[in-house]
């Protein structure tokens, strides 16, 4: 199950994209494509154990 802090957006205050991109509501920023694999729990990745942003937000 994807990270609860993951959203897909086309824009924020500093960016505007044609397609929706991974956005982290925990840090209020678009995330790097590599990190988006963690957000989406792809492969063997798990946002609960692999993402420091999630861990900090849950504390």
């Amino acid at each position, binding site marked *: 199950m994807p990270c609860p802090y993951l959203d897909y957006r086309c824009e924020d205050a500093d960016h505007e994209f044609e*397609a929706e991109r991974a956005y982290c509501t925990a840090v209020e920023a678009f995330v790097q494509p590599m990190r988006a694999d963690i957000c989406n729990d792809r492969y063997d990745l798990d946002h609960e154990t692999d993402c*420091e942003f999630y861990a900090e937000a849950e504390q």
Partner: protein
Amino acid sequence: MTYADFRDGKPVILTAALTGGVHGKEANPNLPETPTEIGEAAAAAEAAGASIVHLHARRANGERAFSTDRFQAVTDAVRARTDDVIVQHSTGGTGAPDALRAEPLRTDPAPEMASLDMGPLNRYQHLTSENTRGLVAALHAEMQERGIKPELEVFNGGHLNESLAILDELDDPPYLNLVFGGGTTTIPHPRNLLTLVENLPDDAEFNVLAFGPHQLPLTTMGVLLGGHARVGLEDNLYYREGELAESNAQLVGRTAEIAETLGRPVATPAEARTILDL
């Protein structure tokens, strides 16, 4: 490769790392992500002096992709828009299962070259690309089977040890990419480049890759030491401090101009094939 090669005016091979898989348009809107964008960037980089293009594949939204199908779309787009450039596929993939890592080797036609990560590499707070010896051997075996020249990614001095250990298994000349930056890559300093170069086999060809603000000085130093240079938005988002690069071609063009000024002509793709015995 030696300083004598520089003095002799040996052509320098320029590799353009066009897109990567770590950052994307959120970091620099000029970074190509779609197959069409990557193909156009490859053509511009070739025109600016690149003889090799280093390719990654992405999903439609810019996120990473490792499948043969996605690499096929990228390599087709590149081949349709370039004249003679050498196609090099990445087999890197932090966090991706080993089973996917060989997928980029299976396009039709196969790439002439592919990257081969020589050991562990950390990312973020919790990720490690393990790159076990078993995986390295399996990827190398498939490259040999498909006639693909490996570029050994030497992220640090330990990876040079790993590379030296398999020298007998490599076709001549071995081609090593010396990587400088933060984290588990070599500390970016001229003395560390000198040390690594001094430990290379005599018949090896080497390339210099340095991240961010270290790209320009260390690749220039590599040119002076008789090596080759990789530049591009995968490794460096900026043209200078505070100024985003406009394109991959802008970064390639600057390094081509520096090499020519220093007395080393920029290799054509045909010359690069001769140097690397492709």
